[in-house]
């Protein structure tokens, strides 16, 4: 494979966003998540944190490889008829990419409204059970 970026421009852009998020590159959502994991794990055991960072670097390396081999390079003759994916798929990828960027730029929204309540539910199990089973 190679050179698909010539005929699949939208897919290429959304692939970069998704790959960067998975690899934990700032400013995408994966970075904020991984930063919290690195910090909390480092306090517990620095070795595990280092392992997590190495795995993250290898993830980035693997996605660079995938991106380079599939999308970069000159337009190859065997892929001259390749066209962009249908609009519905572009739309789906666009929505997911927007969510990735918004979550990445404003990670505090997710932590305050989703993560923190979930942690508190774990810490205060009696209250959580009471809230869930309150009506019974």
């Amino acid at each position, binding site marked *: 494979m190679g*050179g698909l970026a010539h005929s699949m421009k939208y897919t290429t852009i959304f692939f970069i966003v998704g790959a960067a998020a998975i690899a934990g590159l700032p*400013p995408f959502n994966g970075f*904020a998540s991984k*930063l*919290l994991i690195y910090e909390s794990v480092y306090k517990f055991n620095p*070795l595990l944190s280092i392992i997590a960072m190495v795995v993250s670097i290898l993830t980035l390396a693997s996605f660079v490889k995938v991106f380079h*081999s599939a999308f970069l390079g000159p337009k190859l003759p065997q892929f001259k008829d390749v066209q962009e994916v249908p609009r519905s798929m572009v739309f789906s990828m666009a929505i997911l990419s927007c969510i990735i960027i918004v979550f990445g730029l404003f*990670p505090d929204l997710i932590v305050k409204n989703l993560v923190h309540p979930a942690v508190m539910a774990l810490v205060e199990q009696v209250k959580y059970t009471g809230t869930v089973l309150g009506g019974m």
Partner: protein
Amino acid sequence: MFGLLETGSGFWSAIIWVIVVLIIGSIVVYVRNKGEDSYKKDTEQVKPFISGHPEESKEGSHLSASHIYWGFTEALKGYYKPLIEMHTGNINDFSSWIITVTVIVLIIIGVS
């Protein structure tokens, strides 16, 4: 501040990061646009020079992604080759590896 994530030891703000990247990027673009005095367009100096060899066709000179890692795989050959042999494609082997690594990680967690 909006977008500020308190991590316990410090904070992370993607917005500040984006602003810093934009400032540095602007400086880079400014320096690049100042140009190079010795550059002359459409002369011999802008043609690719591959140690005297003629340039291959664009299609024939596509670098595979594996070439990017050649330096790493060559330097770490002793470590890399056994890893390739471990990738048997057998799901039982992969399951064994997952279990083994999980056990090692759990032991590390248990010991510390």
